[in-house]
């Protein structure tokens, strides 16, 4: 059986954010989409730690972009998901779907 690679929860969120943003995926936009969609306000340091780890695993690749005035003349670092990254995301989703099959959550008697 081929060795599969499951992703952590935050890794999945970051990869999905990069996929949703397409060519506009860099630190600020990824942070913003995580806040807007899942209300998760992560520090820029935590985000870059995860991005660096994903890049080391070969799941994303990065390229330096243009420098703009509103960034104090500093360049953006754009991120793009690799084929291996897409495969890892797909495998994780399939595994989660398989585990959820036939599971029924009952909240009777549980205070919410």
């Amino acid at each position, binding site marked *: 059986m081929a060795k599969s690679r499951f992703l952590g929860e935050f890794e999945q969120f970051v990869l999905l954010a990069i996929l949703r943003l397409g060519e506009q995926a*860099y*630190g*600020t936009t990824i*942070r*913003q989409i995580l806040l807007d969609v899942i209300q998760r306000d992560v*520090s*820029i*340091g*935590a985000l*870059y*730690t995860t991005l*660096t780890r994903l890049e080391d695993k070969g799941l994303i690749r990065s390229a*330096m972009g243009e*420098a*703009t005035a*509103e*960034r*104090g003349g*500093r*360049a*953006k*670092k754009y991120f793009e998901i690799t084929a291996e990254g897409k495969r890892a995301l797909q495998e994780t989703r399939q595994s989660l779907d398989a585990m959820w099959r036939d599971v029924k959550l009952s909240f009777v008697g549980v205070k919410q």
Partner: protein
Amino acid sequence: MNKCSPPRIAEALLEKVLPADLKEPLLGDLEEEFQQIQFNQSKQACQIWYWRQALLTSFHYFNQTQKALIMFAFSVLFFVALTIFAMELSGGASMFFDVPSLILTLPPALVFTLAVSTPGNVKQAFSCLFSGHVDSLRQMKSSVMVFDVLGTSCLWLGALMTLLGWVAMGSHIEDVAIIGPAFAVSILTLLYAMGVKLVCYVAAQRINYLGQGLSPNLD
């Protein structure tokens, strides 16, 4: 609307702590977002937001980029703690503190080091030690030389001042009451000198280790 700049100290902290390849994109991202949030938040709230990001980010990267500094500081603190423990076991730490003994050794040793090197080299040696980066073989050699001269001249000064104290005691040998304290002070000078020599030896070895594998062509 008057836009303000990110807090300079927080930026400087990030410049110090971040890995080299992340400085530009990460600081740029923070500045971009800082400019954006100024449209709907007060100046104070923006500064707090930036500081929060800077501190949380520094926390993430401090251990990664400042490991050399942490380990050196830890080893020196461990040495100091053990020395104080030994002093306490010997009858109380207070009898081991004597400012004149320290003044007789460390400042002259620092002057000797500046005399055989340059202020720039001394600064560079401490910078290499605390940052954990040695860029060239020449930088490594000059930094090791700084700690060698500092430690060795401190040790010799300690020995010299101890002998000087003994000569002074010898000339007042009839007055037994002053010999005890005078002897203790003279020995303290040597003790301090040996402590400084030990720390300088560890610092020089640390720089030697950091410079392993540097090519002579990089000078």
